[in-house]
């Protein structure tokens, strides 16, 4: 079954994918840049970094991203999900400008316009261009329910 048009629920899933990823990465960046420089000689320090507050918040947001991302990939192409959720970068800029009152240069506004145009190009198109294994999902589901 090919999904040509997205339902409201599916659009909400894509919004979650778009918003959680950039916010999660921003939290990770804030957390990691506040730590002392890490080297490959001490790989365990990377694991310890995961328990600092900003990195932990970033990880929580990325878990939300991953759950919605898996759901989206089950009914849409990778190339569709990747492009349709690119406006998450735009959301970060808009939040920074309107909520944090950070200045946004002309070039960044140009980037916002180009990304919006790019998403506008792909979003109305088909979300799935290849056949899925829907017919296989019932046995898998029964297998899951029986365990």
């Amino acid at each position, binding site marked *: 079954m090919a999904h040509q048009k997205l339902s409201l629920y599916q659009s909400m899933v894509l919004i979650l994918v778009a918003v959680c990823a950039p916010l999660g990465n921003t939290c990770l960046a804030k957390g990691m840049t506040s730590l002392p420089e890490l080297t490959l000689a001490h790989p365990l320090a990377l694991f310890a970094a995961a328990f600092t507050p900003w990195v932990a918040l970033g990880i929580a947001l990325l878990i939300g991203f991953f759950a919605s991302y898996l759901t989206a990939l*089950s009914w849409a192409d990778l*190339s569709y999900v990747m492009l349709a959720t*690119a406006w998450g970068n735009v959301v970060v800029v808009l939040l920074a400008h309107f909520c944090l009152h950070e200045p946004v240069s002309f070039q960044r506004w140009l980037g916002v316009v180009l*990304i919006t145009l790019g998403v506008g190009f792909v979003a109305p198109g088909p979300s799935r261009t*290849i056949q899925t*294994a829907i017919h296989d999902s019932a046995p898998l589901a029964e297998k899951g329910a029986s365990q």
Partner: protein
Amino acid sequence: MNLTSLPVLSAGFWASTAMLAAVVLSSTAGEVLTAAAMKSIGDLDEIRAHSGLKGAIVAILTCPLFFAGVFFMAVAFFALLFTLNHLNLGLVGPATASLSVITNAVAAKLFLKENVDRRRWTSAVLICIGVYFLAH
């Protein structure tokens, strides 16, 4: 021009390139493998409607491709943490985001046999340039 004198390339040009390439390639491998897994499983919403959340979770956790994808995503995650510790977010974010758009589109066409048509390529190029401008 001495590239290592640039603030964003304090780790050195080739070291910076290697770190960014590691993030992009491992991320692309993870996303393609995960997408292949989800395609083989089928629509999660239908599975959940048929056998509940537990059935959907078990369907995912019994798919070997999913774990291969998660492995590469984990590699990409720690490569990102390591890279962010050496390079500015202003470079790492846009570079990995814009390059991933292209590598994912190519990988989706080559390995997942998706129909990446003119509409999607146009969108990919616009988004790639847009992300580049966002960084400046």
